């Protein structure tokens, strides 16, 4: 494989080059702009897949690494341009790369104004997201992390719905507020440890006293928790999702939120294992709270897009729960569920976007009996819903099962509560599906709707294929993460041992939540 040319830098910056090419096109040439954007994202998808396939999952060693000097901070801290792929990032990089062309294709239907600008922001966004997952220098990571706010801010603010300005400001300020606190923690960490190398930080930060780790963990976790979003910080998400254009929602649900869970794993659990052990019960509780609360929120929605946004809160609650179970099954399940959620929720948003383009409403009661008018649409929607609720044989099942298994090992009580979320999830999603698809056609406007066209079906097929593939052969994907997850687990084990050694009284098992 020609991986000597296909480097991570090419992967990360190819979308940016695409954006510059789009910028160079004449503003009226909409077709050309779409074409360039599609070609660029297809190339990115191809390179991304090639790099992810050329990856050995049995080891935690950083692969495809790049390391170039960047600049020096006072005190002689060498900030370097460090990129690299490991088991934690490989699946998410693949997801980001594959969703690119799908999102570009989906804009054919709903972006008709200022296409050029849209394509530019979309491509810049992809550079930002890939950069977040691939940078292994703390400052480089932060640069990508915050820069990736800007494109979504424009996508939401220019092409969003009625209350887009409110939603976009809320989204930006909320996430920015979280990030700046992380910045101060990062400054402190870099000063104390004299390095910005993430791999080196994993070792030295894990050796800091637990009290110190807890402060740092809190600051980092806050930024990530807002991004995920974990329960009390979730209010920006339904607004952002509801107002965003379809493609914005797909990116938001598909990749952007995963930046938060990715951060929790790499910069929360792996970097501060001692603190993660202390904080795990609380984070798990927040995860469960998110699962149940998100499900109840979703049940109360009449706007179908908002419903899916709330279901995201619920589904990401699982990911947080699985991560902080701090067990092998939990971590594996969470990592897989990040990808699953990106696929199935992305698919749901795509479908909602497609019907919105035809009917221009998202109110559930405006639909009914769509299955008889748009059979292909119904087929895909049912598939997406079943994948989302975790039907065995599809992707969601594997992830949820592993998470629940991991949680059970840590805390049976929380697993029991979390399981109710699975039921609620099935209730609200299936009820919404019934209201939309089945029964008689009540509204005459619905009779004349056209079914999905070739482009729409075509762009969804790769997602469908992946959903099935993950459902049937999850190990193909899970194995890639194995080496790195084992590394995280061994760090946790060391922290656990250090904790037991320092505590005189025989401790209750770390991960048991004591019933109060």
């Amino acid at each position, binding site marked *: 494989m020609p991986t000597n040319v296909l480097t991570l830098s090419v992967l990360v910056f190819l979308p940016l080059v695409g954006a510059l090419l789009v910028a160079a096109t004449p503003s009226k040439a909409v077709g050309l702009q779409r074409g360039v954007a599609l070609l660029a994202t297809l190339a990115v998808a191809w390179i991304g897949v090639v790099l992810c396939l050329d990856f050995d999952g049995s080891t935690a060693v950083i692969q495809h690494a790049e390391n170039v000097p960047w600049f020096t901070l006072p005190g002689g801290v060498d900030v370097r341009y460090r990129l690299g792929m490991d088991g934690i990032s490989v699946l998410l990089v693949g997801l980001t790369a594959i969703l690119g062309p799908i999102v570009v294709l989906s804009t054919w239907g709903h972006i008709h104004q200022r296409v050029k600008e849209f394509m530019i922001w979309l491509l810049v966004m992809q550079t930002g997201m890939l950069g977040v997952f691939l940078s292994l220098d703390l400052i480089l990571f932060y640069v990508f992390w915050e820069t990736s706010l800007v494109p979504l801010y424009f996508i939401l603010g220019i092409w969003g719905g009625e209350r887009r300005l409110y939603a976009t400001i809320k989204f930006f300020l909320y996430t920015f507020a979280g990030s700046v606190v992380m910045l101060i923690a990062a*400054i402190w960490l870099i000063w104390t440890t004299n390095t910005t190398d993430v791999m080196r930080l994993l070792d030295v930060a894990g050796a800091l006293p637990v009290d110190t780790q807890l402060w740092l963990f809190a600051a980092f976790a806050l930024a990530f928790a807002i991004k995920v979003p974990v329960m009390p910080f979730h209010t920006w998400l339904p607004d952002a999702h509801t107002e965003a254009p379809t493609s914005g929602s797909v990116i938001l649900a598909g990749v952007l939120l995963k930046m938060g869970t990715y951060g929790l794993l790499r910069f929360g659990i792996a970097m501060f294992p001692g603190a993660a052990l202390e904080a795990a019960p609380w984070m798990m509780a927040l995860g469960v709270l998110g699962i149940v609360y998100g499900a109840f929120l979703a049940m109360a929605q009449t706007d179908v897009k908002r419903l899916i946004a709330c279901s995201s809160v619920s589904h990401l609650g699982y990911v947080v729960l699985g991560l902080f179970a701090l067990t092998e099954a939990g971590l594996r399940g969470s990592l897989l569920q990040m990808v699953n959620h990106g696929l199935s929720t992305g698919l749901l948003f795509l479908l909602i976007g497609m019907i919105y383009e035809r009917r221009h409403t998202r109110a559930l009661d405006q639909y009914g009996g769509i299955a008889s008018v748009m059979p292909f649409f119904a087929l895909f929607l049912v598939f997406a819903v079943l994948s989302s609720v975790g039907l065995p044989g599809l992707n969601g099942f594997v992830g949820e099962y592993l998470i629940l298994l991991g949680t059970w090992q840590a805390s049976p009580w929380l697993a029991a509560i979390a399981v109710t979320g699975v039921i609620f999830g099935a209730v609200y999603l299936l009820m919404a599906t019934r209201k939309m698809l089945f029964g008689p056609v009540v509204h005459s406007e619905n009779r004349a709707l056209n079914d999905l066209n070739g482009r729409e079906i075509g762009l969804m097929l790769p997602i469908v294929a992946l959903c099935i593939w993950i459902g049937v052969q999850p190990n193909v994907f899970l194995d890639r993460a194995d080496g790195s997850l084992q590394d995280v687990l061994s760090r946790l084990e060391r922290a656990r041992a250090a904790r037991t050694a320092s505590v005189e009284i025989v401790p209750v098992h770390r991960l048991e939540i004591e019933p109060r």
Partner: protein
Amino acid sequence: MSSGLAQLSQATLDATGPFLALAVGVLVLVLVEILPALKALRSTLFLATLAAAAWAATRTLFGPEISAFDGTYVANSTTSWWALLFVSSTLIAWVFGRRYYREEARLEGEHDILLLTAASGMVLMAGSRDLLVFFVGLETLSVPLYALSAFRRSRSESVEAGLKYFVLGAFAAAVYLMGAAFVYAGTGTITLDGMLARSDLLQGPLALTGVAMLVGAIFFKISVFPFHLWVPDVYQGAPSPVTTFMATGTKAAAFAFLLPLSFALPSQSAGFIAVIALLTMAVGNLGALVQTDMKRLLAYSGVAHAGTMLLAIAGMFEDPETGATSQAILFYMAAYTFTAGGAFGLVTMLESQTGLPVTIESLRGLSSKRPGVAAALALFMLSLGGIPATGGFLGKYLIFSVAVRGDMVLPAVIGVLLSVIALGYYLRIVIAMYMQTELEGRPVPTESRPVSAAMALACAGMVIVLGVLPGWFLDNVR
């Protein structure tokens, strides 16, 4: 102090090179004003003067420190960088002011002379290590600025700005002189080296009061709470090119001297300075949040930025990395000069095209009519807000690093949270330009101005270079 031509050795010439270049340029331009035949050369001579000053500054950029006039004036790497910054700031203000003046167009020669004189004052301020030399620089800067603020003499708001600035500035100058007198009475010296050498005397009540008064007067110039009240009115009323110059250059010059002066402060004052810095950030950001006029908004934002930089001075006392504060402030100020210079410059350009003050409302729909202008202004807003990949981010990073290392973690956290408020109004400007449609009856000017556009592009380029490839700058600033 001994004086005389004998002292004007090669070293002294090197040390005062940038100042001399500017001063000679001023005299030449005055001559040109008298001889109508040479008026066509005015712009060329102006630019040549700046180029000469910049060249003179680069001569001392990498060399050892040169001390002149019995240690009352120095030239080293830091002062040379400052001088380059002042030259850039003057150039930005001058270029954007090219077609700004209408009624006063025939007086543009005067304008240029005043601008250069003020720049020479800045250079003097940055290099001075003596309270009186600094005062000479301060007045060489301030007096031309008073005149420049009132330069549009037919407009009441400009005259008002000039008068306000003059009255308050004169008051600050008086406070400064009184402070210098107290320091002299308490320590028997007015050189910074002398003051530091007698640090025991510096702790006495008389000298301490004196230092506090000096710092207060400088706080006035850098617009720190509670001495910031003049800023919005003067920035708004003064001609926009002058505002551009004031916002970037004056602040930089005052900081350039505040840095060495703050070594004379007792280290217990760190907490006090941190509180003032945070209050300045709060006042600036909250004040800017409710503004509708762009110049006023940027004025308040400038107050907030001064507060941010002051936080580094608060952290300096405990920071184990010597020189990091000066590096951080220099970098921050460089990023700010190009960012705010570009932003004020574009406001100047739009204002001179419509003849109306630029408000947030008037920027609506700018992205469709003037995509380049809107993109540059959006970039400047993001840099002012400290979003990465711009110079503003790295500046913020360096400043807060000093604060964190200086045992100021809590003030640093409060500070960054205050900077979130700032994003609130920077984003409003971006929203108006990109996400709202043009207002009826306020058409966006579409005529292009190549010279201003080139300057804006250069500023934008610098903002990105400082954010993405800061190495060449950081490695050479200590």
